[in-house]
């Protein structure tokens, strides 16, 4: 299974069909508005979560898929639970535990925003083919060269991970097991060999590109242009979030 495909769930929903550049900008703008929201506005975060749930429903992304992907966040969740316990300052009693109030606020802030952010990213990655995400980035004027680099990285990631796996099998089949830092030289030799292979492959890929007429620019193969209507649909998400933020500001 290709690394780049792990999050993507093929589908024909309206969310899947939106041009990638619209989705990319929408998710980015949503994340910025969400991060800019004061942590005291619990209701606003509730509304944001509702918006993402609505997008997930329209895209027919099962909740289980999103929840499974959230393990990325786990280290930070564990940490967030730790802050109120070790924190100082004004304290309060919850179930017999003495917790720090500023610590609780901090934990809530991280949990809420990181969770909403990761959910939005998962929705983007689940409804957009990796290749299209890059095409979208290109349409958003991310420098062409950077997009090309990312494209090559995605293409060869699996190839290189396979090479790494084979080297590990070769090490272990000769009885090697990394136990402590004294075994670092063996790991480092593998890393060195991996670099040489990656570099040489890069050179061969370059030759293959030259052989088919490459001269520094990627030819335009997909011309994905977005209509005003598609932009409107995609930007409904961040605009709704922005409305929440502005309304909250007026009320305060």
């Amino acid at each position, binding site marked *: 299974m290709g690394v780049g495909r792990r999050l993507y769930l093929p589908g024909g929903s309206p969310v899947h069909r939106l041009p990638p550049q619209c989705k990319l900008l929408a998710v980015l703008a949503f994340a910025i508005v969400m991060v800019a929201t004061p942590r005291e506005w619990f209701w606003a975060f509730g509304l944001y979560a509702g918006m993402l749930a609505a997008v997930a429903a329209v895209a027919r992304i099962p909740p289980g898929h999103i929840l499974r992907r959230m393990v990325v966040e786990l280290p930070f969740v564990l940490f967030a639970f730790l*802050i109120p316990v070790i924190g100082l300052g004004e304290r309060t009693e919850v179930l017999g535990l003495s917790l720090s109030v500023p610590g609780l606020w901090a934990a809530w802030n991280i949990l809420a925003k990181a969770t909403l952010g990761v959910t939005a990213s998962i929705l983007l990655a689940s409804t957009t083919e990796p290749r299209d995400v890059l095409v979208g980035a290109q349409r958003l004027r991310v420098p062409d060269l950077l997009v090309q680099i990312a494209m090559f990285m995605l293409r060869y990631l699996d190839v290189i991970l396979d090479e790494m796996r084979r080297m590990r099998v070769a090490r272990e089949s000769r009885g090697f097991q990394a136990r402590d830092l004294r075994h670092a030289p063996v790991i480092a030799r593998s890393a060195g060999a991996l670099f040489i292979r*990656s570099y040489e492959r890069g050179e061969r890929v370059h030759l293959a590109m030259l052989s088919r007429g490459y001269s520094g620019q990627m030819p335009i193969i997909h011309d994905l242009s977005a209509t005003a209507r598609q932009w409107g649909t995609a930007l409904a998400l961040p605009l709704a979030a922005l409305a929440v933020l502005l309304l909250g500001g007026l009320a305060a």
Partner: protein
Amino acid sequence: MHVPDGFFTAAVSVSAGVVAAAGVAVCLRGARRELDDRTAPMAGLVAAFVFAVQMLNFPVAGGTSGHLLGGALAAILAGPFTGVLAIAVVLLVQALFFADGGLTALGVNIILMGLVTVLVGWGVFRLVTRVVPGRGGVTAASFAAALLSVPASALVFTLLFWIGGTAPIDLATVAAAMTGVHVLIGVGEGLITALTVAAVLSVRPDLVYGARELAAPLVLRGADGTSTVTGRAPEPAAGAGRLPFLLGGLGVSLLLAGIVSFFASPHPDGLESVAEEQGFLGQATDHVFGGFALADYGEVGGIPVGVAGIVGVALTLIVAGVIAYAARVRGRASSGERV
């Protein structure tokens, strides 16, 4: 471990994004100058290598394991410009395809793990190789470079938080604690980096960017049997002349970041006012995640942050647009046929 959304205020996130975009733009130009139309496949493969190497766990002690950040390693093996590009693309891909690291925190992540580790790592590497020549020098320099790049990254994290956060932190205390923890982590990074560079050096010394000056000079044989030795192999293109430009660009961006952050923080002198909080922060940093403990205070209630965030968004879009446009125009102008 990447910073997710919510650690920094919107204003800091956006400013960091601008700084990161400027740094990456400089590196795009630099890499293109060095690698020409090989840039995309070479940097792409180096990025895939960095991604793979970050998955290579090495046991530290007592059942815990660590993994490489890879910034210094990429810079020494592939050159500083390509190194930054590779790390930036790794972070971009992790954020976009794996939801690892917040989209709004992408700028912060690129600064911490890409720009800082590569700049510090490469600087230390050049310095040490000048003092200690030869292969031993390259290995020693790799160790020092990778070691120092880790606490440097942690320090910049602290600094960023001190600039951007409204929570009161005692910069000196926190910085000291952060440095202590991360020097320990850095020893592991330094060891693996040095050994990896040494391994490549022993098989394909020509592929180690940082060891180009070690290449044997060419010998020209004359018809009369005499032989002359040419000068050293050509200097790598990353000359000192570009460093001021790089630092200048970063400086301007940081200034911009500072201005935006000022808007974000309505009470800049509140930093000193809540003294008792410092105790908590000092303790919290003893934890491995110490750096991140500070970040919890990255939010302040009220409108100004939101407003600043929106100002920041507008600013970023404008600046990023200008940078992207400039990079495209230059990219077109400099691309040419290669044989």
